[in-house]
């Protein structure tokens, strides 16, 4: 039971931390909870569908279909997160000061929230499909009785979601003015980390060269499977043995999003 709980916990935590950051980042937008719910629900349904046809996906393109799929899902999430940060660079200040044009912000806020719903759906889809595949296997393999699998799954899910909720509670204690700067930095690093991960999938599929591998090795100082290492892996894309290609993807995405945020920033805020 504990084995099942730990695996479900690990997969849940990744999605839960991402959801907590984007939930905090969209805090003052109307109908936010509904959009977060839509993203979550579509992610759960999508992950069951993906888990169901994983054999097909896996066998596409000579056994690398799943890597391509993961890289595409991550790439799409990176685009949405980047777009969110650019949008926040333009509207964050007015949102924080509440001096907003309500009519426009309702319309623009909806587009922003639908991008966030897509991000959540993609994150849940990726982690959820692996969890579902694992639980299906446990159930059909008869290694554990059904009640043990279910209680393990629920325990892991609750622990992961609980940590995510804890992070959200911590974030929303930050005053609005600062909160959006904090979430923008977190989302920038999340997106860069996802870009690095998508590069890793393309390298293991032999689509991209890894180049210098590993570029560095910090597995003695901070192993990726230690609590701190895996937390940093999820949040800022820390890797103990990254290849040069991963680092290039990471840095490029971080710089492109930063440039977009600078470009979008309203002039009067710069002058202030």
């Amino acid at each position, binding site marked *: 039971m504990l084995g099942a709980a730990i695996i479900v916990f690990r997969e849940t935590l990744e999605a839960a931390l991402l959801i907590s950051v984007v939930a905090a980042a969209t805090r003052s937008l109307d109908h936010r909870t509904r959009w977060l719910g839509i993203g979550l629900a579509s992610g759960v349904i999508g992950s069951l569908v993906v888990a169901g046809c*994983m054999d097909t996906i896996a066998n596409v393109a000579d*056994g690398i279909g799943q890597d391509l799929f993961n890289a595409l899902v991550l790439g799409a999430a990176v685009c949405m997160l980047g777009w969110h940060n650019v949008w926040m660079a333009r509207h964050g200040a007015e949102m924080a000061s509440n001096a907003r044009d309500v009519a426009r912000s309702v319309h623009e806020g909806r587009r922003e929230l639908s991008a966030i719903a897509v991000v959540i759906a993609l994150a849940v889809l990726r982690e959820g499909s692996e969890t579902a595949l694992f639980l299906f296997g446990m159930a059909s393999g008869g290694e554990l009785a059904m009640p043990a699998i279910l209680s393990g799954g629920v325990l892991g899910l609750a622990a992961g979601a609980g940590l995510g909720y804890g992070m959200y509670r911590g974030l929303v204690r930050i005053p609005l003015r600062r909160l959006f700067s904090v979430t923008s930095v977190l989302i920038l690093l999340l997106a860069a980390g996802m870009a690095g991960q998508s590069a890793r999938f393309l390298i293991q599929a032999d689509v991209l060269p890894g180049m210098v591998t590993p570029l560095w090795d910090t597995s003695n100082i901070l192993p990726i499977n230690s609590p701190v290492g895996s937390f940093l892996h999820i949040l800022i894309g820390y890797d103990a043995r990254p290849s040069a290609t991963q680092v290039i993807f990471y840095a490029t995405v971080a710089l492109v999003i930063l440039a977009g945020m600078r470009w979008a920033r309203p002039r009067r805020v710069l002058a202030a």
Partner: protein
Amino acid sequence: MRIARFLAAAVLLAPVTGFAADTDVTIVIRDHKFEPAEVKVPAGKKVKLVIDNQDATAEEFESHDLNREKVIPGKSRGSVLVGPLKPGKYAFFGEFHEATAKGVIVAE
């Protein structure tokens, strides 16, 4: 549209323009164990690990040493490119059955 078409072309062409591995090595998963559990590969070369999961249930091939992870559904195969590796030992395991599914790659 143009972007979508470009992406589709990139995905379709990618395997063709890939950087082919020097060696293929097959690792079988049976009863939640890897066979062979010790895999010898040449150092300094790219190696394609073909993981043949003969169990009915899925397994996640994972290695912190190699910085790789990949889910292999039941009764199917998946490939994972590693290397070029420096001579040494690289542990791997099956995340879904960590107690039994363990192995090591020896690059020499």
